[in-house]
């Protein structure tokens, strides 16, 4: 917007004051934006500088070692993959089904309640979810990767449920009617027509949920404990990248801190890439949707 300020300034001081206020807020806003972008850059740059030299072949092929020895990150990386994978296996079917329940089953009151609580569950402190899983699972079966996966799944389910609900809600009713007209029962229509049509939103939700749980530490602390050795057994304690960061970042040993930075870099890259892919995918699906 172009305002001929000189003219106004001559006319009265009030305009000057308005102009001043406007530019003050404007500069303030630029500064705040700059601060946030600086924080992101600072995080990424510190991660790169400290973590990048640690990304070596050795690191990917060796398990964590004891203090004062050189170790790699093989077991936390695989542990993270296994636990997040298990959590995805649990949460994707449950989450999508919950989404279907919210979108396709018309029980107004119950739907509203479930929707409301899953919205709240998304923001519930993750450490409390860890406590819950500890009380339910760990007390009975001991520290285990499966308990860790369950706590991650509990965090992912509401996210997947809400996003798939939203995705299903925008599927036009005419497509459903076409399915019904062919004599398909409701479950077939939902599973084989609505869900595929809403795949963009559902996939985005899944990716976002995975990117959220991949970096979670607090719930794993009480459930999968961590393991300094290599272990395939999902009923035994298992290591994971966030736990390793939590342990190593706090030590004074420079080699361990280096490893912590490397682990942090790996987690961040994974999470941010997944997040970016989800966003790009969402955009693409939206664009495609417009063409149809």
């Amino acid at each position, binding site marked *: *917007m172009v305002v001929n300020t000189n003219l106004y300034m001559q006319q009265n001081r009030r305009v000057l004051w308005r102009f001043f206020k406007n530019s003050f807020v404007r500069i303030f806003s630029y500064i705040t934006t700059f601060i*946030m*972008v600086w924080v992101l850059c600072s995080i990424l740059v510190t991660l790169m500088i400290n973590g990048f030299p640690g990304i070596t072949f050795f690191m990917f092929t060796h398990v964590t070692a004891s203090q004062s020895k050189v170790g790699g990150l093989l077991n936390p990386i695989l542990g993270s993959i296994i636990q997040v994978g298990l959590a995805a296996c649990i949460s994707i079917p*449950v989450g999508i089904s919950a989404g279907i329940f919210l979108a396709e089953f018309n029980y107004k009151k119950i739907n509203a309640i*479930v929707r409301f609580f899953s919205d*709240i569950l998304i*923001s519930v402190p993750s450490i409390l979810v860890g406590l819950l899983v500890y009380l339910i699972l760990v*007390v009975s079966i001991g520290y285990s990767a499966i308990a860790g996966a369950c706590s991650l799944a509990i965090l992912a*389910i509401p996210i997947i449920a809400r996003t798939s609900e939203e995705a299903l809600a925008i599927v036009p009713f005419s497509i459903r009617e076409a399915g019904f007209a062919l004599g398909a029962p409701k479950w077939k229509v939902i599973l084989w027509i609505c869900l595929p049509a809403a795949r963009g939103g559902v996939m985005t939700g899944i990716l976002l949920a995975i990117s959220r749980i991949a970096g979670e530490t607090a719930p794993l602390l009480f459930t999968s404990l961590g393991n300094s050795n290599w272990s395939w057994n999902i009923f035994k304690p298992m290591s994971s990248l966030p736990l390793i960061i939590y342990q190593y970042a706090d030590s004074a040993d420079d080699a361990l801190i280096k490893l912590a930075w490397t682990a942090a870099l790996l987690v961040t890259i994974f*999470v941010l890439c997944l997040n970016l892919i989800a966003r790009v995918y969402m955009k693409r699906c939206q664009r495609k949707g417009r063409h149809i």
Partner: protein
Amino acid sequence: MVFKKLKCFVKRNVASIVFSGWVWGCGVFVLLIFLELIFELFFQGRRAFFTFGTDFFIRSVWNPVNQEYSARAALIGTLVTSIIGVAVALPLSFGCAYSLTELLPSKISQCLTVAIRLLAAVPSIIFGMWGFFILVPLMSDYVQPFLKTTLGTMPYIGALFSGGTFGVGMLTAGLILAIMITPYTTAVMQDAFANVPALLKESAYSLGATQWEVMRRVVLPRLQKIIIGGIVLGWGRALGETMAVTFVIGNAHHIGWSLFMPSNTIASLIALEFPESASEGLRMSSLMALGAILMLISFIVLFCAQWLLKRAVKN
């Protein structure tokens, strides 16, 4: 033929029943998790509540030797850090949302929007590490001495900025929380700003209003509820943040006026003390009781946030 048809019908119905049963189960499962969360925490914390009674909220001891525990210090730590977080995040996110929707050219603003959304995706433990290695030295060398010599010498509020400038403490934790919740509140505000009808804004511009005046007189009055809802939502997240806080809070059981002092939040206390608490002990029960209190607070806060956002959307 008839038999085949019947079989087909039953088969179809079985699938249908199984499917709706499963879907119903999943829907109710979400609800059950939530109720179980509240119930289990209060149930496990009952011993602490019964043993200490109101003392649990009034006294400020946390003494494993004498088996005396109370919630006050951690509760105050949680509230103070999260309120600092919200207080800093409010102007930060408003500034970001304002410049991204109204001021910057759309190409740049799109890039920056993605950047800020990505910031929301960064795991909290990374914030913790970054805070400990980057922010803490920054605070102890520059920010805290500066605050101490300026605000610290003023009457009344001077007490808030006194004490040793060691970098870790409630102020640093609050700032980290602010950075963490800003992307969320920014996103809420950005959506809200973008949804204000262009017609309204344009008519205000045509009357000669400056950009800030349009924001202040036209946009903001329409969006009070959404903005408050977004901020409260951010507050709810800040309350339970664990990993980022544990790194910079200093893990100390103190209650003091100074924001520089190390403290504890409920979440960081649970993370710290949980592994060493005997599973049937009073300490574990106290931690569960703390968890229950945190659950209750965040439930109320998130409830308000959802309610405000829902109502705003309806309007």
